[in-house]
């Protein structure tokens, strides 16, 4: 049976706790394993943290809309924000093979999202960023 969950977050970092609780409840309903739950939470955390820290030019309260859907062996996440245009899919990968002293942290969140998700699609619609992420669940136990 398909399961859908909608979450609305405000642009403050304390909302990451709301996000974690919502992902947990979605994972329970969809009977996802702990690893899948952790990885979904991580990908969403990185996206939401990026939006909260970098998307807005003003000090106003903004809403970030997230929909989680589970059907059969696929999870689809849709994330919408009204921040400045930002196409995640066009960002470069970080350099992961540097020594400690030269290693930089930028881009690691995006690297996680690419690693943890199978497909990422970006659209700019009605002055909003809309990101769709897909995760196939066929490799359970892998």
């Amino acid at each position, binding site marked *: 049976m398909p399961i859908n969950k909608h979450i609305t977050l405000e642009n403050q*970092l304390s909302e*990451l706790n709301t996000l*974690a609780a919502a992902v947990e409840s979605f994972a329970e309903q969809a009977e996802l394993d702990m690893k899948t739950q952790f990885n979904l939470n991580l990908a969403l955390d990185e996206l939401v*943290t990026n939006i909260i820290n970098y998307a807005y030019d003003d000090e106003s309260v903004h809403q970030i809309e997230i929909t989680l859907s589970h059907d059969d062996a696929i999870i689809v996440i849709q994330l919408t924000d009204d921040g400045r245009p930002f196409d995640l899919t066009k960002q470069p990968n970080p350099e*992961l093979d540097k020594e400690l*002293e030269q290693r930089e*942290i930028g881009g690691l*969140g995006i690297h996680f999202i690419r690693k943890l998700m199978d497909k990422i699609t970006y659209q700019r619609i009605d002055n909003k960023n809309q990101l769709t992420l897909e995760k196939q669940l066929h490799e359970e136990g892998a």
Partner: protein
Amino acid sequence: MNINVNEGNGCAVLALEGRLDSNTSESLAQQLNTTIDGGQPNVVVDFSQLAYISSAGLRVLLMAAKRVKASKGALILCGMQEHIREVFEISGFLQILTVTDTQQEAEAMLDSTTA
């Protein structure tokens, strides 16, 4: 997230509990700075009660590792749960940070390098 600070054998032991994300990483950064500024460049971070980490947490640990290295000290991470270890793995951080299974191994490693 809670941070319990204890004195180990020639090192400070910071035991993390809860979630290390962009909402909580600053408190760990402050504690690490307090410890290192207080003259203790040998730091063990115990992950056994940590449930979650994001790139914000990795950032703080990377900065601390650079600081202790500059002070001729060591940062050792121990007791990671599997999901958290995987985050370190996909970051390439297992190659640049020192990770042990247990706190005892971490302290023994410090003992042998500082002796």
